[in-house]
């Protein structure tokens, strides 16, 4: 699941450098509103869950996105 998520993020960002869970989104050069939208769409397609802008109010790092997905998946079960 972690590897799948990181692959997805790499695809969205078209990033050559490795991505770490501690990386701040603000510091990722490739992260912008369209990247966020692309990730939201991919997560919806892959996991069938919706991340909204409300969720992004509490998201600062790559790991926060992963935790958000994980929490939503857990609540669904």
């Amino acid at each position, binding site marked *: 699941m972690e590897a799948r998520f990181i692959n997805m993020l790499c695809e*969205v960002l078209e990033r050559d450098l490795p991505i770490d869970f501690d990386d701040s989104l603000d510091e990722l050069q490739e992260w912008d*509103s*369209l990247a966020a*939208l*692309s990730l*939201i*769409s*991919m997560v919806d*397609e892959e996991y069938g869950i*919706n*991340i*909204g*802008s*409300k*969720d*992004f*109010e509490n998201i600062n790092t790559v790991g926060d996105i992963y935790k958000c997905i994980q929490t939503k998946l857990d609540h669904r079960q």
Partner: protein
Amino acid sequence: MNFCDLTGKNILVTGASSGLGRATSVLVSKLNGRVCLIGRNEAALDETLSMMEGAGHIIISIDLCDYSRYDWLFGAVTAEFGMLHGLVHFAGVRKTLPVKVLKTESLKQMLEINLNAFLELVRYFTRKHVPDPEGAAIVAVSSVSALRGAPAMTGYACTKAALDGAVRSLACEMAPRKIRVNSIAPGHVETEMNVAVKNTLSVEAYNQIIQTHPLGTGQPTDVANLVAFLLSDEARWITGTTIFIDGGFMARS
């Protein structure tokens, strides 16, 4: 006779299980029309039916992407209703996909229900002995997205622009048979689906949507009123056009 009276008219409504399809079905019933409610979710169609007035409405639960069932569908509807007077295609899929993640499979899914299903429905609806030779109306549901660009709407916009294009030619082809073909293009309407989206948005993000509509966002009944008018004889001279119902969204530059 009251304005927009639909007495004696038999109308097919796809996507009748919620939102705009539900509101239109309810209004058509209040205007004395008879409705064939089409959708996938039978329980939700039952709920729509429970909100309707009058008698004789029917429910057909079907996957509209299974075109092989259309022959059966139209056979069943005409056996029950006789000749038909209206077709409204609300069923559709909207996916918000930046082009980077717009894969052909997602585009295909949207095209299948938004465009191909509509054209296939029209093909069966316009067969000999199906529409009333005295006149019938077809309404496709487009979107402001067909004409106004927005990030991540490429696929959806393609399907809706294609619908509008189809409507123009269909109108010319069907005019000699007194079948009018139009599309409506709603802006942001507070359907169940959009309310769910609203709940995932920050106040700021949602206010941005509202601000693009000078009259604010719409209600399903606003759209239903327009569709009922297009289905009625009062719209007898309207064909081949797209009518925006968007609270002024398109009026802004």
